[in-house]
């Protein structure tokens, strides 16, 4: 899919390849690259997967692999937690039983 110049996009950089990682990191972390994602305005038309240049929110120019056009915020509130639903009631019953204030 072609992403037009001027779109708000996210790029990915490989900061350190596995063999370049710091000596003190644990094995599971050392097995994978250190990656970075950042958003900005795309400076030329490009396809996802191509190396592109962007201008970030503060005007810096950064280069990386185009991974997404205007990705959504995916975090939410999740589901209510059944184990917590009665906690308030339990505290209130405790106060009532004791009669102390």
């Amino acid at each position, binding site marked *: 899919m072609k992403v037009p110049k001027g779109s708000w996009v996210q790029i990915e950089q490989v900061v350190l390849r596995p063999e370049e990682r710091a000596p003190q990191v644990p094995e599971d972390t050392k097995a994978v690259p250190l*990656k*970075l994602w*950042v958003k900005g305005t795309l400076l030329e038309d490009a396809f996802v997967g191509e190396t592109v240049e962007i201008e970030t929110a503060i005007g810096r120019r950064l280069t990386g692999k185009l991974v997404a056009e205007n990705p959504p915020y995916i975090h939410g509130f999740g589901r209510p937690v059944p184990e917590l639903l009665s906690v*308030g009631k339990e505290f209130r019953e405790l106060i009532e039983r004791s009669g102390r204030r």
Partner: protein
Amino acid sequence: MRDNSYAAVMARRNEIMKRALGLDYGEFELGGLAFDYERMMEKAGYSLEEVRAIQKETNVGDTPLIELKNLTAAARALSEPGKGARIFIKDEAANPSGSFKDRRAAVSCYFAQHHGYKGVVAATSGNYGAAVASQANMRNLKSIIVQELFDSRGIGQPEILEKGRKCEAYGAEVLQLTVGPELFYTFLRVLEETGFFNASLYTPFGIAGIETLGAEIVAQVQARFGRNPDAVVITNAGGGNLTGTARGLIKAGAAETKVIGASVDLSGLHMASDRDFNRKSFTTGHTGFGVPFTTWPDRADVPRNAARPLRYMDRYVTITQGEVFAITEALAALEGLERGPAGNTSLTAAFAIAREMPEDAIIVVQETEYTGAGKHVTAQLTFARENGIEVRRGDPAEQVPGKNIIIPRDPSMIRPKDLSMRDLKASYLRNALKNRPAGSPEALTEVETAFLADEIKETREGLKELLALARGC
């Protein structure tokens, strides 16, 4: 062309830092392992009055102190007759970006603006990012926030995703990284490339900013009760929150108030592990930062850390993730305050500690933080379940960080665990001795001895005994 390999950038760290901090830490060194902490705080920081004025300019501080009457009643219901202190909470969520971190960011951004920096950079996955971005906007500075957010599968912690969103909402450039301590390498490269100010959490500015929090607590309790609080409970991670608050208490004349640190127990999880990263539900305020920074503050991103909790801490307790989630729920259900959850670590400890204290005693929890998508009990427990963590009711004593989260079956089960202050102090001394510059005389000098006694809040006698313990004799 500059060599930007990991080793080369780390080797340039001191010169990068010097330019990015506008401070020469060398002038505070006293030889050997000692440095003049108070002179550093005085010379490089700002006075309490100056900080108040700086924070007023950007609407930081003067937050309400709220009495938690129903939580106090619940604590009393679980206490012996005559026990159950009054619990108060400082509603720091009322600051512009929603946490006490605005206090720290306010001073750093003021300094950066007045020293001609064009922008500020902060390495943080916490509320501090939003605080820096928000304060930077008010001071017409650009901001870059460097976050550790994703595991290698590209899955982000919901709490940090929200913090990243908030920074972007303020117009910051947000650099989001996978797990690893090399975040510091990226941070150094950004400082070098931009010439921006290092809005570190650990400079004298970052600590001086919190002193107003301690001083406000004293003033607010004094105004209502004509006396000082008996204890203040502080969530402890990097140590700045505790250090700054305690210094503020002392400056406001409450040197006798007990300073209690609290962290979420995440023992057994490796903080730099890609696999463990998404097996925890707390990204700050936990023992993974709290214990290493308490026992060796100078592991921070500045040459000398201004956050030195053992100088002030009277007691240090841990509580479990499930206990904090239960208290967060109770805070909403009983007090009508939807806050946290991470910021409620100290509240959870205070709820249990109040049971040990007399009814007329006053215990203050010194922060709340804003809550929102991702940063919420439902979001974090949903995420925990998706990552294979068992969530159930039970006895918090059965918790295993990274395997399960136990919501206490009954409020009486909320009980903090004391960490041994003796062991923490001995561990600090071991680290201090290990990091003593090569070529130092064999015996500690008089200056070093005095420094170490201050560092762990001990008399000379106490220091001697703990040094023996640290040296293993």
